[in-house]
């Protein structure tokens, strides 16, 4: 039997009638047309389906949409502010951290939550934070460099706001 749920996705509230067996990945992609969240494996092994749920990056393929009722979800589509890219996104572009792009949405979201909790991560902390996001193209190096650079940029921005 379908359930009526409310999802707050990228700061927008959606009321949806969904069957219990639909995952959050499916509902985001098929019902809300947010196609940036990908399915790479469907069983939590690759991180391509990463979204931020109540502040934590998670594998949306292992979450039932009905379990996410009332939760705040951020997908890759919610990261940029209109035409203004997030510093992490800018760094990914500048540092060559993107090749095929399939892991990119998940990487950006894992990186975003890392930097929000830990504004000055070491290289090891960065690698740990993205250890659930597989990438076959880049070898991770430029992704790590981009996240490090973004952390510095975000710190500078913070400092400027404090002045």
């Amino acid at each position, binding site marked *: *039997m379908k*359930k009526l749920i409310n999802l707050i996705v990228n700061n927008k509230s959606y009321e949806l009638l969904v*069957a*219990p*067996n*639909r*995952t959050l*990945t*499916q509902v985001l992609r098929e019902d809300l047309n947010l196609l940036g969240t990908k*399915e790479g*494996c*469907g*069983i*939590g*092994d690759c*991180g391509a389906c*990463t979204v931020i*749920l109540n502040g*934590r*990056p*998670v*594998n949306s*393929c*292992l*979450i*039932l949409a*009905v*379990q996410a*009722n009332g939760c705040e979800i951020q997908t890759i589509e919610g990261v940029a502010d209109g035409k203004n890219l997030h510093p992490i996104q800018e760094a990914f572009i500048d540092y060559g951290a993107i090749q095929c792009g399939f892991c990119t949405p998940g990487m950006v979201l*894992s990186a975003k939550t890392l930097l929000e909790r830990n504004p000055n991560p070491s290289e090891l902390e960065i690698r*740990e*934070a993205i*250890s*659930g*996001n*597989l990438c076959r193209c880049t070898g991770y190096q430029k992704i790590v460099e981009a996240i490090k650079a973004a952390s510095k940029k975000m710190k500078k921005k913070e400092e400027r706001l404090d002045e």
Partner: protein
Amino acid sequence: MLILPKFDYEEPKDLSEACKIMADLKGKGKIIAGGTDILVNMKKGLLAPSCLVSIGKIPGLSEIEPRNGSIFIGSNLIVAKLTEFDLIKKKYPILYEAASVLGSPLIRNRATIGGNIVTARPAADLPPALIALSGKVKLKNRKGEREVELDKFFVGPGETIIKEDEILTNIVIDEPPPLSGGNYIKLGHRKALEIAIVAVASWIVLDKPDGVIKDAKIILSSVAPKAIHAVSAEKILIGEKPTNKLIEKAASVASNDCSPIDDIRGSAQYRRAMVEVLTKRTLTAALKQAKNSK
């Protein structure tokens, strides 16, 4: 897309409602907490319960409550929090260590301590650490609540003594005694997203800083249908003064205390050899921690 089979979904508002639903379902329902194990098995076609009962909305199941020196960890507490709370890191570091190597950061943000126990995977990371800590679980159904030592909880792969209408509500860990220490090491292929080839949790309690070993636990996982004690190795340690030689002896004996199998992650022979290596390493670390603890 990997599709889930169809099922009904219940989201009880409190424990008594949950217990009633589980009782009415008569075994046809399964609890879903984080979902990182059950949904994988359902997608693989290994499981098809007719109803999933979520404990996600039940208040009080996601906290750690200190009670008279013990802590009651709500079964719905996510594994990530076990790595974030200072209390766990400082007072129960062996649990912190096990939680830190479970899956990946993404999995840890959903997997729960209760789920990692009740799914009873032979290679699960938390049970060895919790058994080393002499942890207990609280099981509740409509008829009441009981407490079971984790030592007696597991039966085999995917099997525990939990009844079909029971819900695992809390994990209870008593105050660690003074001069105690533990260590958990997981041997995997990669450094993340791994299911252990072999894992060992060791626990030592000394009677005096320079004294003898009052209590010792060596829990082996992935080398038997469930996490087990290296019984003879533990016996060798108790009552003795801890020396490198003793630890080496215990480690060597431990490798005979298990019955590993060949599987896609490793051979039985290698696992046995690794039990010795990991036992030695965890005992050494546990001893060091015990000597330094207050």
